[in-house]
């Protein structure tokens, strides 16, 4: 019998109060509730405070490069479709240095879950402005205020053809857990952005602030996450307020369903082909 502690490898050393704790405990609960064996999970993380998550979690882990979590994670999944593959990035990792992969992963739709920890700042490198930092945000990298518009990852995801788009808040771990659970059950690429305060470097985007600017679409009986038009409108429904909950979900075949239908995991294929099979192809060169 698996226990919740079976997913705990070691205690995190994030700053006390960091939003990543909420994510960590929610994520362990998800794995536990889905009864995923630790050895059947592979968690790929980027570089940043979020990147430590998999070294605290008991599962196969890959702490990779800044911005490259997604291609690595997709490679893992395609090589072994029986694994539960989860990638974890920060807002810098996902929306800045890794943005190209973000867009293309959404349209490729490999069956995996992508958790983007959005603290609206670069945590590990000591608090510089990130692509989700607000206009005029003051930080060591923009001492006179940022002069760039923040970007909204979920709208980009919708435009890029994402098949599962959700947002949680590390201050609401239960909802976060249920969103990650739904994401992991989703057959395709699931994006779960997590609003997650960096208590050390970001004195603006705090728990209180996030709480005051979010509204929960899961609680709205009139909201239909399978309706793309509604999804588009939700971002501007309440001015600058941020929707949380399941924003959009559609059913479409995953990349591997189409390109590796019903195949044994590549990682465990017998590599010696039938006698004569390659020779036959080589006849074309004669």
């Amino acid at each position, binding site marked *: 019998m698996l226990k919740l502690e079976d997913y705990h490898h070691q205690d995190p050393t994030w700053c006390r109060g960091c939003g990543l704790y909420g994510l960590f405990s929610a994520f362990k609960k998800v794995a536990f509730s889905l009864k995923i064996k630790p050895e059947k999970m592979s968690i790929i993380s980027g570089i940043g405070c979020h990147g430590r998550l998999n070294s605290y979690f008991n599962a196969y882990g890959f702490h990779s490069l800044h911005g490259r979590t997604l291609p690595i994670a997709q490679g893992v999944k395609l090589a072994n479709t029986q694994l539960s593959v989860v990638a974890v990035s920060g807002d810098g990792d996902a929306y800045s240095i890794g943005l190209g992969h973000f867009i293309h992963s959404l349209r490729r739709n490999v069956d995996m879950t992508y958790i983007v920890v959005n603290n609206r700042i670069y945590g590990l490198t000591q608090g510089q402005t990130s692509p989700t930092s607000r206009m005029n945000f003051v930080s060591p990298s923009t001492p006179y205020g940022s002069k760039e518009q923040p970007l909204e990852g979920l709208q980009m995801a919708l435009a890029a053809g994402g098949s599962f788009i959700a947002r949680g808040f590390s201050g609401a771990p239960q909802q976060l857990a249920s969103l990650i659970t739904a994401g992991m059950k989703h057959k395709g690429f699931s994006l779960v952005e997590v609003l997650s305060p960096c208590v050390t470097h970001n004195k603006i985007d705090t728990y209180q602030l996030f709480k005051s600017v979010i509204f929960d679409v899961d609680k709205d009986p009139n909201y239909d996450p399978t309706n793309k038009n509604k999804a588009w409108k939700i971002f501007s429904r309440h001015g600058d307020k941020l929707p949380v909950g399941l924003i959009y979900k559609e059913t479409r075949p995953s990349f591997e369903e189409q390109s590796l239908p019903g195949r044994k*995991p590549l990682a465990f294929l017998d590599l010696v082909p039938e006698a004569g099979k390659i020779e036959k192809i080589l006849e074309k060169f004669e």
Partner: protein
Amino acid sequence: MIKDISVMIAGQAGDGVLFTGNVLAKILKKEGWEVATYRYFPSNIRGEPTHYIIRASQKKIFGLGNEIDVLLSFDCESIIKYTKLIAQGGVVLCDGEELSRLKPTHKKGKAFHKFPLKILAKKHFKNDIFKNMIALGALCYILDLNFRLIERIIINAFLKRKGKEIVRMNIDAVNLGCEQARLIVEPSERHKLVKKMDTGKMFISGDEAIAVGALAAGCRFFAAYPICPATEIWQWLALHFPEFNGIVVQTEDELAAINMALGASYAGTRAMTSTSGPGGSLMMESYGLSGMAEIPIVIVDVQRVGPSTGMPTKTEQSDLNQWIYGSHGEFPRIILSPGTVTECFDFTAKAFDLADKYQVPVVLLTEQDVGQNSRTAKKFDLSKIKIDRGKLLSEEELKNNKDYKRYAFTSNGISPRSLPSMKNGIHMVEGNEHDEKGYRDEDPENRIRMMQKRMGKLSGSAKDMIPPKLWGDKQATVGIIGFGSTLGPIVEAIEELGDLNIRAKNLQIRTVWPFPVETVRDFIRSCEFVFVVDNNYSGQLHDLIHSQVKPEAGMQKILNYSSVAFRPSDISTQIKRAVRDA
């Protein structure tokens, strides 16, 4: 009797030069000749001069000869540009009005004929696309080729796709070309080739051979981003991987390509990516991740002219330093350099075993000249390939292991690998410095041990590496050292020097890293003169030998960074001069 012939087909991009040349190459191959092609193409699609050389020989050849015997051109520009290369007794057919611009001195001893390909095509077939078949007919006449072979090639190419009528028109066009050439070309100007038997050889490019090697070696994951001149590897794999349950992914960029391959390899699949210089530059950070995290990967770089976008379709050997010294930090790596299409196949297969055994990145460093040009080669010996995955654990072997360490310190630094999904094999893979279990560790003592573990993995590896190959007369005291695609011109330069009573030999470096220091040192010591052939500006191989071997005697550089492949005479004349002057 003709023993060696080079035919150049020239024109503007879009003229069908490649198509015409490929059919000619196939016929020559079917007639039992050794064939090597050389394409010199612009990197756009239409409207710039291009040429394609098809060389056929009775002996083994790997590349260009020195001269052109027959030149057929769809315009006159190339003729004027290449008259210098035309051999005495050579014959030229040209569709254009500008032959008159040639000076009589240029024409001496060579036959020039105006041959109105486009007009003939329009007149007889109402479509100038038939100019290519008319050209082939003319070449068949000049070279006295077997007409049936062309017929068969046309039927294979067009019957299914285009139907009987098109086949008939194409055959008629070939006939017309043959007839027209008979009217223009003097019998004495013909270059009649002796027919031999097709000995069942293959006619294959280096890129294709690499793809076949990967497939045969059990590679089942390939990710790449389109780039000249490496794309042919991908296209072949994309076509054939599905039958073998493999997958090819077209990624958004080279960063994704190498990282996806690393992910797949970490999960247990033999994985490869291929690119050329610009993509290689983008891959540098992940090259280091492979070294640090000890994830096997095979990276193919089909080099082109750099830096920056350079000349995308032309050949060079200027990425050597990048793969030896590139990426920040220090990590072990293996770099192989094939000189022939057969070696492209063999070395690719070998690359996967080396990557698995040493858990390092293995680079297959080749060049446009080998990658995109086709050569005849003996059928590949698939039975030679024994897939050896190195220290890859099975779930069974992990059964009683309660303390598995992915990066365990071992006597040779190589630690057994478990794969995701294996019970008792859970670990972290880390790009940060890490402890034996893969968890981040910044302790200086651990750092020292881990560096020594990784960097030491290749110290006893010489026995597994592909050794340098000696060509020519062992006793010779004129030594040439080269790698990759310069092999062909070097070997032929040695023959040319032999004709001048200069005995020379060649050491072909086939594993450029780890560098085969002892063999190269012994070779240099056995020579009075040493020449290092580099298809780059600075002499990267020369400098590598200098830093690794520290030879007592001086070495002379033979360089070429013109974007045109070496010809044998480029090498032999420099050596002749240096040796005679000494």
